């Protein structure tokens, strides 16, 4: 599923629009960056509340497709700026990470 279709189906708020034609093929939930680095599958949607620029760096290096900030968690302006610069898609939802992840998983399967 493409990110743009994910946005349409979930109604998640767009914090930064990167390449919305990029595919999403999995879901991963975690807030510890090295854990995400080592375990998140490439091209996944990553649910987190860690809205800093290091999260953006991790998503770029681990080939994560899109970051979804759960529970309306705060996203640093520096993180948004870095995402804009690097073409990383950022979304936001008021749902908890588990519920948002479940929803994405349903849409993917």
């Amino acid at each position, binding site marked *: 599923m493409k990110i743009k279709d994910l946005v349409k189906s979930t109604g998640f708020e767009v914090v930064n629009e990167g390449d919305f034609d990029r595919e999403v093929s999995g879901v991963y939930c975690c807030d510890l960056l*090295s854990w995400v680095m080592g375990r998140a599958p490439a091209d996944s949607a990553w649910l987190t509340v860690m809205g800093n620029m290091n999260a953006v760096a991790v998503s770029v*290096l681990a080939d994560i497709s899109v970051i979804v900030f759960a529970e309306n968690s705060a996203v640093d302006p520096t993180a948004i700026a870095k995402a804009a610069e690097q073409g990383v898609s950022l979304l936001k939802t008021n749902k908890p990470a588990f519920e948002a992840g479940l929803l994405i998983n349903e849409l993917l399967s």
Partner: protein
Amino acid sequence: MSALTLHYDVPGDDFTRAGEASSDIKNKLKQMGISPDVIRNVAIATYEGEINMVIHANGGTIDAAIDAESITLTIKDTGGGIPDVELAMQEGYTTAQEHIRALGFGAGMGLPNMKKYTDEFNITSEVGKGTEVIMKVYLSK
């Protein structure tokens, strides 16, 4: 002989720039047409090494050498060193302080990730002198 070498100075304690060297290496490898799987492995291993130097060693250097067979990554600092390397290599072991953990670091997974995502991994460290990690990722499996 190396077809290409890249060198980076990584500043210490600067989280705003942490990951820049790894991103640049990733982009250069992409331009060279290296396979995405190999690039991802290199990117993960390099980033973990880069961020470790920023957090634990007040910065250092990264050298990448790309030849026909493999990519060799040398991550070197002159920081405080690691007293017990075997312990540091264990998943979950960390000395990261609370303010570092609040940023999402300190899972104690960085060194294990570096070993997991590379084909050769070698770490040497001396307290008071620094740490050197040399890793190789093969271009074809």
